[in-house]
């Protein structure tokens, strides 16, 4: 069930004369100075992060029995590094209180939450396809299983932060993540925040954030599941899950394999013959293994390892004769997490080590480009329920990104640390939140990043929301160091965003109505673009300002009876995201809409459940967008999904049939890159659960 809260954004213009950076000493352009290797701060960070790396390896090698000792050691080191003097007294005996994660539950921000059931229902989808069909978020797809990214509230793809259990997994070199590479069966929950929240999440959370979560049920002793699907274009997907454990220890293994030729028919023009797309095959295999250990009610320890490899051929455009290009992606993500909860205190530490490699090759032009990086991340959260109405959260984040991309000439690093303090007040139907983040990079401190949220229930059915926050995004490693064109003097993109929302919901006798409407307004300056510089190549520059404003509306109705339910919702987005500076190259006029940002977008969903059968129909309408060369016409696409779930004691499952683009619309999302016509996916999924092993 889609849960969506309305949020409102209200207008406030950015003070353009105010400096964005407060350097440590003398004011210098951001990123104009190199890392001072003698700095105790940087040195300690490096040491700590190296310790994290060693620890994470030790966790795997030594086993779970030593985890606690290592983590505590690391926690002490981290706290010492960041200077955060967190103190908590575990000897106090206070009544149990609910301690909320204030970043995840940010007050005043509109959210979409997809739970385990919804993700399992579409477990054969990639996250890109899932968001495209299940939300009104604009997904920019190159077609089939090709590169996909999202735009939320008119922001760029790099301005939507992708998190895995709270840690950012976007490429620090590109600033983006290909959502087509994320299988849905690797997440138990997807939490989407619509609208900026840089204060909580840091760099990149300007348009929104998508948090992929892994949860475990300690009441489960055994769970085995297997699913397989076959579809058009030789599409084969197999996936499985094995969960094994008891009340204290759980092991969860998730695997996914998929391949396809993606050789759909292309009808580029009425005057020429249709032809079959070539050089478009893909294959992908991944495993996500997690171990969870809960020695008692206070401690919860988890280690996650996500290893994945994929290979994709890059098909030609419709104005290209042929292509032999391909791309290989491989990554390894290791994360350790420790949660401690006692009375009014909650402590959470997370460490991550991510290594990723993308190899693009085009034999036709004798081109090979290898892009690789690694990230070390450490995050610490301390939450305190001072009183049932008052909560406090202190967090620190340290990130060290390293890449020895050939185009950089030498190994380059980007390190940053941040402290976050958040306070919330909740009483009856009033909720308030204030938070402030101070981020430090190797070039000095950024201006504080505040967040203010207010949520107020009005009567029994109305909810009012208001949010004002500052947003920012640091330049990527490519922006800074790519040769040619990298610019070490780049400033971060930054600005303010405001949201205002009002929602209404009512429920009676099986009927549910809901109406939600929200407004957003955002001004971002120092917008980073690649544009002609003084030399014969493009350079990354802080070259523009972008003003985004728009509305998001949703109307929903559902009716439920014992063996029958029907639900429908209509979504409509209006987004203006416009440049405020004219440029000659790229050719931009004041008031031009951002490329690939539709002004109008709509989605209608209809769902019918009757005696164990489910029928779903979705219809998506996307208004005209502007590509780099051509205008991309508006399009509409309909998708149908039939499924028959069954549940017989410990054994449950479903069979399903999905028909995408049922009206066989000929459309493109990215210019010169056609999307597939009518295609089907047929599959089954079985699940065995046993509470007693």
């Amino acid at each position, binding site marked *: 069930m889609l849960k969506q809260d309305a949020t409102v954004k209200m207008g406030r213009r950015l003070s353009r004369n105010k400096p964005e950076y407060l350097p440590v000493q003398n004011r210098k352009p951001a990123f104009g100075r190199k890392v001072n290797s003698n700095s105790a701060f940087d040195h300690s960070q490096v040491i700590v992060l190296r310790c994290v790396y060693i620890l994470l390896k030790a966790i795997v090698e030594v086993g779970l029995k030593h985890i606690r000792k290592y983590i505590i050691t690391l926690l002490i080191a981290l706290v010492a590094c960041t200077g955060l003097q967190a103190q908590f007294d575990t000897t106090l005996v206070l009544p149990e209180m609910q301690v909320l994660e204030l970043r995840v539950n940010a007050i005043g921000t509109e959210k979409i939450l997809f739970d385990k059931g919804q993700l399992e229902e579409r477990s054969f989808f990639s996250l890109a396809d899932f968001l495209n069909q299940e939300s009104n978020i604009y997904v920019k797809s190159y077609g089939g299983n090709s590169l996909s990214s999202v735009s939320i509230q008119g922001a760029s793809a790099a301005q939507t932060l992708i998190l895995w259990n709270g840690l950012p997994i976007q490429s620090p070199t590109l600033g983006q993540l290909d959502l087509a590479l994320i299988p849905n069966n690797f997440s138990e929950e997807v939490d989407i925040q619509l609208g900026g929240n840089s204060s909580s999440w840091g760099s990149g959370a300007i348009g929104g954030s998508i948090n992929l979560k892994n949860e475990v049920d300690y009441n489960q002793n055994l769970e085995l599941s297997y699913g397989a699907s076959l579809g058009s274009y030789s599409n084969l997907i197999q996936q499985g899950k094995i969960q094994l454990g008891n009340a204290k220890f759980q092991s969860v293994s998730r695997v996914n394999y998929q391949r396809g030729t993606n050789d759909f028919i292309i009808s580029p*023009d009425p005057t020429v013959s249709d032809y079959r797309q070539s050089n478009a095959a893909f294959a992908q295999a991944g495993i996500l293994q997690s171990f969870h250990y809960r020695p008692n009610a206070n401690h919860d320890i988890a280690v996650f390892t996500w290893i994945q490899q994929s290979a994709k051929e890059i098909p030609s*455009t419709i*104005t290209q004769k042929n292509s032999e290009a391909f791309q290989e992606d491989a990554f390894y993500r290791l994360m350790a997490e420790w949660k401690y909860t006692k009375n009014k205190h909650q402590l959470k530490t997370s460490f991550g080590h991510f290594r990723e490699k993308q190899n693009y090759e085009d034999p036709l032009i*004798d081109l090979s480009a290898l892009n690789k990086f690694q990230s070390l991340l450490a995050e610490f959260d301390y939450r305190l329920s001072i009183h049932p109405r008052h909560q406090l959260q202190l967090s620190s984040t340290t990130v060290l990104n390293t890449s020895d991309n050939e185009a950089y000439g030498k190994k380059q690093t980007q390190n940053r640390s941040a402290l976050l303090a958040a306070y919330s007040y909740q009483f009856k139907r009033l909720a308030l939140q204030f938070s402030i983040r101070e981020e430090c990079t190797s070039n000095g401190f950024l201006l504080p990043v505040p967040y203010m949220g207010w949520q107020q229930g009005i009567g029994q059915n109305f909810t009012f929301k208001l949010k004002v926050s500052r947003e920012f995004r640091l330049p990527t490693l490519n922006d800074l160091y790519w040769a040619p064109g990298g610019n070490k003097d780049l400033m971060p993109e930054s600005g303010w965003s405001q949201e205002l929302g009002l929602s209404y919901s009512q429920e009676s006798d099986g009927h549910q109505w809901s109406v939600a409407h929200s407004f957003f307004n955002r001004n971002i300056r120092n917008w980073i673009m690649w544009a002609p510089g003084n*030399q014969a190549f*493009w350079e990354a520059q802080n070259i523009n300002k972008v003003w985004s404003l728009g509305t998001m509306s949703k109307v929903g109705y559902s009716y439920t009876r014992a063996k029958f339910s029907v639900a429908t919702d209509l979504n409509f987005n209006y987004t203006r995201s416009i440049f405020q500076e004219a440029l000659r190259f790229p*050719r931009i006029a004041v008031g031009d809409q951002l490329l690939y940002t539709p002004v109008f977008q709509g989605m209608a969903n209809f769902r019918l459940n009757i005696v164990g059968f489910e029928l779903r129909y979705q219809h998506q309408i996307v208004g005209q967008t502007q590509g*780099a060369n051509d205008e991309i016409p508006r399009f509409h696409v309909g998708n149908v999904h039939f499924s028959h779930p069954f549940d017989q004691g410990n054994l449950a499952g479903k069979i399903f049939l999905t028909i995408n683009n049922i009206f066989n619309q000929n459309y493109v999302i990215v210019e010169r890159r056609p999307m597939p016509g009518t295609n089907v996916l047929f599959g089954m999924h079985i699940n065995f659960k046993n509470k007693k092993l």
Partner: protein
Amino acid sequence: MRTKLLLAASFFFNLVCSQTTATFENFNLAADSALNGSDLSGGYSDGNLFFPNTYDVQFGSWAGFSVSTKTDVTTPGFTNDLSCIAGEGALNSNSYAVGYFPFPLYEQVIDITGNADGGAMEGMYVNNSTYGFLSMRDGDAFAKKFGGVSGSDPDFFKLKIQKYLNGSLGSEMVEFYLADFRFSDSSLDYIVDEWTYVDLTSLGNADSLLLSFESSDTGQFGINTPTYVCLDELTTKDGPATSIRSLEEVIHVGVYPNPVVASLSIRNQDDLRGEVLIFDIAGKQMGQYTITKQFEIDVTDWPSMIYQLVFRETDGKVYRSSFVKK
């Protein structure tokens, strides 16, 4: 007989106007190699022309002009940006210049120097680079295949040549279509893949040339078509178009009759050593002859058109003229 003498005299006058040609052969480049400015010379001089080059040491990129003997006519993409689609220089030579005029102006100046400064350009041979030709023919990840999906898009890629004289940009312009798909009959669409002579005499006297590009495949980020061109055999008149400066460089060669119907006579009064090359208007070589004191060329079966006639001495000096086949 009197008419023949007049025509011969007329052509003789044409040849006695001293000319210098930039052939790029004097760089003595090894086979399949190039000078792309990494020597930080800032450009290359040949004949009475200077071809500027900008090279970025940090990024290893160049713009302006390079000199090349590369012969790769099959590899598409920017990794093969120094090859000509002909696989050789004009007139079967080894070396040629590659011009790359990047954004934002897509233009580059060639300086006219020495005795030719302020004089008149005669002409030059032009061709597509392999990168540009294959991109227009097949498309690539950024640029479209010319003609588009249907093959009927009115695409074009044009080289424009203008002149500067005494600091002012002249109004005269010579346009040469490196690719032209604007014909209503698509079978006439073409992408140049042979060295083609471009007559620049209409520009008049100049002290520099301004070369620039225009393409139908232009988007928000500028021209998508690779903005490359290959040049060779750029000939300058060593002095203003209306005067003869150096009698020492006069050659005495008679070519007659002009127009010719069957047999073209060439009389080499100065006993020059070298060869004579003849090209049709599309740049196709019709013949190659060793220069003797006097010889005849049978043109009976040649199509009626204007032909380029090139005298190339063994020391590299080149003299050029034309004749008409009836």
